[in-house]
């Protein structure tokens, strides 16, 4: 039985770090032997969560920090993306497909809908101090190992 593992990284709220966050999580989750599809699903969901921070969390300041945590619990991958920004006024509304507070910027309003569709479970909470915390869950099937052992 593999020991549970975790990692944590903090970076400035810059769009260039979206790609970094995706690759970082993908590299961490390799220990669970995910399929290529599972890795790509996770990368997409992480990108949505980090983009929300970059676009919405720190509108009036020159930027803040984004904290990214990943942990494994057995075959469950748990990813937490949090910021100390302005927070989401109405979380329920924000999770509705096509809802966006910035329609003039060609935004689809599909961020949370995509996270929900690509992960097993998505939780959105107010962060302890201020800002938002998004928790993404995905159980990795370990298909490759099953094939190896077959």
């Amino acid at each position: 039985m593999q020991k549970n593992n975790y990692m944590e990284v903090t970076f400035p709220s810059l769009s260039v770090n979206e790609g970094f966050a995706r690759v970082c999580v993908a590299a961490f989750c390799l220990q669970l032997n995910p399929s290529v599809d599972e890795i790509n699903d996770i990368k997409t969901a992480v990108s949505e969560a980090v983009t929300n921070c970059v676009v919405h969390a720190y509108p009036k300041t020159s930027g803040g920090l984004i904290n990214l945590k990943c942990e494994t619990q057995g075959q469950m991958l748990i990813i937490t993306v949090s910021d100390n920004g302005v927070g989401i006024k109405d979380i329920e509304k924000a999770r509705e497909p096509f809802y966006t507070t910035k329609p003039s910027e060609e935004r689809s309003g599909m961020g949370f809908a995509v996270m929900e569709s690509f992960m097993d479970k998505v939780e959105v909470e107010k962060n302890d101090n201020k800002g938002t915390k998004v928790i993404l869950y995905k159980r990795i099937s370990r298909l490759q190992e099953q094939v190896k052992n077959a």
Partner: protein
Amino acid sequence: MQIKSKVYNNTLYVLLCGELDEHSATHTRITLDNVFAGGDFNQIIIDLSELEFMDSTGIGVLIGRYKKMKDRQIPIYICNPSKQAEKIFKMTGLYDIMPKIV
């Protein structure tokens, strides 16, 4: 993001190479608008076979270009999306306005 394009038989072929996210969205928007502005074509085919990553930011970029081309009555078609891009297109109904071609 690198964007390659050519006009052949009245069709503008556009190949998106790289990653389409918030970071590359502005560059992608501007480049596509420049490419779409010129040339002699009556339809556009956007090939995603070289697109390594796309999230929902891509939907906003594509719908924005659709709106501009709709005024000129030039249809846009999508081909070769990744599995993840396909899932996002189906969720958002993008294929209703930019049909997928094989």
